[in-house]
């Protein structure tokens, strides 16, 4: 029997969680956001990256929560941590350059990986005000790599985001607002940028030279042409390399029996 689960054994959230987990390398310092990324990072900790160091934005350093926190300010974050302190530590450590990887989300993304979580429509006359930035631009500015997890809809993969909340590979240089490569703007503070987008359709990566997103793998059931049709910008699908790797049966066991048995972030697939 294959170590990999067959399609009827897992759901889309399982696939995203395992794809996100595989972005983590052992010994890395990882900044966790609320939700699916917490499960993904804890899954990596229990599989291929036992020595990763987990930072929760609200102020826990090298946390090892025994029970899944429901947010980064949760009382569960502090249990087993190397240090419990506050936001000053979390953000100064990030700005100092300790953070290897951060997981983030967004409502809209453009070709360069600029992400919007602030508003839909004109900022000064918005159709819809969203949550705002939170730590999204901070983690994205400070970490060496960031991975975005997003719902894939054509209205979300857009030519121009309504508002650049979080900086991608080509960003606005103020006060004029002309687009420049991130490396040019960040100077000595440049450490990297978005390294992947894991959507509900596929996994995307970025060419650091031109800053463009390209398709890496398609989730089972999707073709490169399907996914190209789900983007408003002209997506490069020439480098696509087959399907996103399925979860292993062991990963599914860890997600559903150990990490998130109450289905707080990852629903169980209903057996037919």
């Amino acid at each position: 029997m294959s170590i990999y689960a067959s399609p009827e054994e897992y759901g889309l959230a399982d696939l995203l969680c395992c794809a996100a987990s595989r972005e983590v390398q052992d010994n890395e310092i990882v900044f966790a956001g609320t939700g699916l990324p917490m499960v993904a990072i804890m899954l990596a900790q229990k599989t291929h990256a036992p020595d990763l160091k987990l930072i929760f934005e609200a102020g826990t350093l090298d946390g090892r929560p025994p029970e899944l926190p429901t947010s980064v300010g949760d009382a569960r974050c502090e249990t087993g941590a190397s240090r419990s302190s506050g936001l000053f530590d979390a953000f100064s450590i990030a700005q100092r350059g300790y953070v290897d990887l951060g997981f983030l989300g967004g409502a809209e993304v453009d070709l360069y990986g600029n992400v919007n979580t602030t508003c839909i429509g004109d900022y000064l006359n918005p159709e819809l005000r969203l949550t705002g930035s939170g730590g999204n631009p901070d983690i994205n500015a400070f970490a060496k790599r960031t991975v975005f997890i997003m719902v894939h809809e054509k209205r979300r993969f857009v030519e121009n985001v309504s508002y650049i909340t979080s900086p991608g590979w080509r960003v606005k240089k103020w006060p004029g607002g002309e687009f420049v490569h991130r490396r040019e703007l960040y100077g000595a503070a440049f450490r990297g940028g978005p390294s992947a987008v894991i959507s509900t359709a596929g996994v995307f990566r970025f060419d650091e030279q031109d800053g463009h997103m390209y398709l890496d793998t398609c989730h089972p059931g999707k073709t490169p042409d399907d996914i190209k049709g789900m983007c408003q910008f002209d997506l490069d699908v020439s480098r696509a390399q087959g399907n996103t790797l399925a979860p292993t049966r062991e990963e599914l066991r860890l997600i559903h029996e150990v990490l998130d048995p109450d289905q707080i972030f990852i629903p169980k697939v209903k057996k037919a």
Partner: protein
Amino acid sequence: MSTDKRITLQQAAEIVTNGSSLTFSGFTIWRRPFAVIYELIRQHRKNLHLIEVNGGPQTEFLVGAGCVDIWESCWVGHELYGKYGANLSRKVGNKEILVEDYSHAEMLFRFTAAATGAPYAVTQTSLGTDIHNPEYDVLGRAGKRDGKRIAKHKYIFTEDPFFDAGAQILIPAAKVDVAILCVQQVGEEGTVRVNGQLYSDPEVARAADITIVMAEEIVPEEYLRRHADQNTIATFEVDYILDCPFGAHPTGMFGKYDVDGAFLKDFYTNTRTQEGFDSFAKEWIHGLDHISYLEKLGWPRMLNLRANTALNYRPREHKGGK
């Protein structure tokens, strides 16, 4: 022993006068001073200027009740229990509130600057984003930048003059009139001991002109001074104290009680419209005081939130497990 810092909930709310700038302890849905928030709404406070490291249910309640003219922060929502701040969103759409966006680290560094007595902080975060778009200086557009409590500029763009490290952003100190903290323990003279994550409590307490601390319990100073290394904030940084058990509900309190997710979800679901907010406020805020609010919530509900004192949270029963 001095007890002259003790005030009541009503007095705490009265210190926050119309037009005050205000900030809070806590983080999103944890350790928010809800008993005072409710009292501010009961007293119909107006024209508040909230400056928050991050927002949460407390923002949504005050904004929904029409207490707030200006909100400066980076995020509002209810985490797992409501994905965005529907009251703020509605008032932004109706142009009933001014919102000034900074990033989370910027807000934290702004309070750190104020807490150290510095006029501004310097950072490299969020470069290249619309947070720095000069057209989006909302308080400047509204003519509010008087250089007194509200800084003359939202940002200054500059270059590192010392090490040639490139672009830097100067951000103004967060000057606030009042900070209201909600913690586990405060001593009779004002020593604060926070358990669990500190969030940005030490910075906001030091930044504010007036700091009010409400606590699950007021304890003898002598008890806290036996282990001064475990204390978070010193007596003279605290102006007023009050005893208010379960004062953070519906937000959580490390070691004491978890977040009341069902309450927040109910609030989020039912307050999308102003009519919805008003009827929620009529049921849960107006005509009640803190004790009758707790009575209305009832023992079964509160016991179900109570943290295990060894774990500091309430372990899940894994109803959906295996």
